[in-house]
């Protein structure tokens, strides 16, 4: 098998899909709210990789601008989300999502 001179777009998309799926599995499988949060970051980064790859292959910089915005939103989301997790920990003494069932009714 010979390696292509330039990496095809499909390879980047496959890598992005794999990372996104790993993130989804992390959200579904783990119970620790912090690890679930990290998995969400992983999914955002997978989407960012697809954005950058398309931006490169479609001769357009707009994808990179979108990645910039996604990073900003991720930073805001992490700040707020971690504050919420800390508050939940103060209240319930746990960060395991199946033990946080105040709204279960």
């Amino acid at each position, binding site marked *: 098998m010979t390696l292509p001179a330039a990496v095809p777009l499909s390879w980047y998309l496959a890598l992005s899909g794999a990372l996104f799926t790993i993130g989804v599995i992390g959200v579904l499988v783990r119970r620790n709210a*912090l690890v679930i949060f990290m998995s969400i970051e992983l999914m955002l980064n997978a989407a960012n990789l697809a954005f950058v790859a398309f931006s490169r292959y479609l001769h357009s910089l707009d994808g*990179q601008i979108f990645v910039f915005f996604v990073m900003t939103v991720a930073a805001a989301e992490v700040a707020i989300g971690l504050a919420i997790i800390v508050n939940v920990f103060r209240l319930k003494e746990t960060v395991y999502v199946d033990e946080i069932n105040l709204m279960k009714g």
Partner: protein
Amino acid sequence: MMTTILFGAFGLLAVVCALLVILHKNPVTSALFLVLTFCSLAGLYLLLQAEFLAMVQVIVYAGAIMVLFLFVIMYLNLDRDVDDGVPHALRRWVGWAIGLLLLVETAVLLWNRWGAGPEGPAAPVAVGNTSAVGQLLYTRYLFPFEVTSVLLLVAIIGAVMLGKGRTQPGPSGVPPQ
């Protein structure tokens, strides 16, 4: 040729570290592997000639965001690590099944469209990437850029409000009034 090898190395590193993020028991180790994933993604951005984003990825993601994560993990001091029990095991298997289903769907989608789209990457632009991104950000995307600053302001206010803390938790986990 060289880019293909680098793509393979960075991609493999990213996938392996991402798997370790979701599989490792200790959240601190997960966070450190996530830093490594972000760094390998920054390497991929460099391969895609997005130098500005690669630097932002390292500084903002691997630097600022992950420091926040590690700070909270160590602040909460989670020594109790339980991932056992029958209901949790069932839930875990269902999670794996759904996740692998998504993987198969993604693979089928990619398989049908494999090689579609542009053949090779665009020729490198003469002007620097940072300068080009900046030009676009301050002309066509000026309004979204300003809205982003408002978003960050809202996030700061929200974090301060949430971080102020109220009082001790009530006896049954009910928030005190």
